[in-house]
């Protein structure tokens, strides 16, 4: 096809105009995306601050309710109606407390204000307390809860932050029970490696997680089954909190699962080595004054 020079120039001009238009459209979209991103960051931060601020406003009355339910059980001992009502109030309030603890720790993690406070912990006792606190929930779902202690390591101590450790294991236990089938079992065990790392295993024999979904489960607000028909409780925060807390404690979390065959979660926590000790510079390190701002 023959075209004249004028036609060629006109066609080229047209094409240039089109690319200029596309480029300017793209710039507008890009600017809008950046604005949206900033808005998102701002709303995330507002939400986190709000949650860390209202923590005490909610925790205090809730603790009073749990305490009073206990008192009521003692006072009303002998009266079947009162005992069953008080134990129901206690169990529901404790469940609410667990959910709220998760929401608050998530807010603290997002605000960067979680500070591990490490102490020596008797692992078996700590795990026994945790397992006992889930007996009621497990019984309701007809799930057997077993704590398997190593024969010779019952006296093992670990240096870690108890509160964070409890939240990690509670979330794994809660999940294991929630996703167990009727009449199933959940087993909790631990070992201490030669390197001093604590390994805690939480095994269920429930629905399991398909390999494609295994990375996704640590995301926020993700429950593999969604919509109004979903059959499992919770807000989908538990595993993302668990992962963030394990990261904070410089440990790792692994899962072994296949659909229909249950899931084994392994949490590996190194002994808390970072203490607030000003003189613990490395042997090979050289200490020097880097810079004095007062002179800058």
């Amino acid at each position, binding site marked *: 096809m023959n075209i004249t020079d004028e036609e060629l120039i006109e066609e080229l001009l047209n094409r240039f105009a089109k690319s200029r238009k596309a480029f300017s459209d793209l710039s507008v979209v890009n600017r809008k995306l950046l604005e949206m991103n900033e808005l998102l960051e701002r709303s995330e931060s507002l939400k986190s601050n709000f949650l860390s601020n209202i923590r005490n406003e909610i925790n205090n009355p809730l603790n009073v309710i749990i305490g009073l339910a206990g008192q009521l059980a003692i006072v009303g001992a002998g009266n079947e109606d009162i005992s069953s009502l008080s134990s129901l109030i206690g169990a529901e309030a404790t469940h609410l407390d667990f959910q709220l603890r998760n929401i608050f720790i998530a807010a603290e993690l997002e605000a960067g204000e979680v500070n591990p406070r490490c102490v020596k912990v008797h692992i078996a006792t700590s795990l026994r307390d945790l397992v006992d606190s889930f007996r009621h929930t497990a019984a309701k779902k007809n799930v057997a809860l077993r704590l398997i202690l190593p024969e010779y390591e019952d006296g093992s101590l670990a240096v870690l932050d108890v509160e964070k450790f409890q939240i990690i294991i509670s979330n794994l236990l809660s999940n294991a029970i929630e996703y167990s089938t009727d009449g199933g079992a959940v087993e909790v065990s631990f070992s201490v490696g030669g390197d001093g790392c604590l390994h805690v295993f939480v095994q269920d024999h429930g629905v399991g997680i398909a390999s494609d979904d295994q990375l996704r489960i640590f995301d926020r607000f993700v429950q593999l089954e969604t919509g109004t028909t979903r059959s499992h409780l919770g807000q989908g925060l538990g595993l993302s909190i668990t992962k963030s807390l394990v990261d904070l404690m410089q440990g790792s979390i692994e899962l072994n699962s296949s659909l229909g065959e249950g899931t084994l979660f392994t949490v590996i926590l190194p002994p808390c080595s970072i203490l607030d000790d000003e003189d*613990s510079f490395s042997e*090979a390190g050289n*200490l020097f004054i*880097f810079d*004095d701002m*007062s002179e*800058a």
Partner: protein
Amino acid sequence: MDSGKMINRHFLFPGTIFADPLEYLISTVLGSCVAVCLWDHVLRRGGMNHMMLPLWNGEGLATPKYGNIAMEKLLSKVLSIGCRREHLVAKVFGGANVSGTGLEVFMIGDRNITLAMGMLEKFRIAVVAKDVGGRDGRKIVMNSESGVVMVGKGRKAVSGD
């Protein structure tokens, strides 16, 4: 620094932030992580963050483990203790290439440094001092009142990432 008076101390864990109106010695240990110190040279107050990875990808919790979150949160934290944005100066540390591989995908240290510097430029905060990159881990201690940061280096120092 050893004037005999008791100064509060805070160890900054990876993925956390600290800033307080009182005088504190804020310390942390860095490998490929980057810590940014923001300090108001007029008010003489400041704070520090400790990022492990450059960008939050929208998955998991939006914690200051990620550089873009850590920088925004540190800035709002130091502003909340009374610092003025126009009086802020920054010091940047860490970002070592501790794994020793030259592969770009593993060079988290470099990517953390680029992110921190880029965010500071966006905030228009001057970087008055930095000790970044290399292959050695660092331990840093910031006096939040004087703005002085002490740095210790050594391959054994790395217990943070």
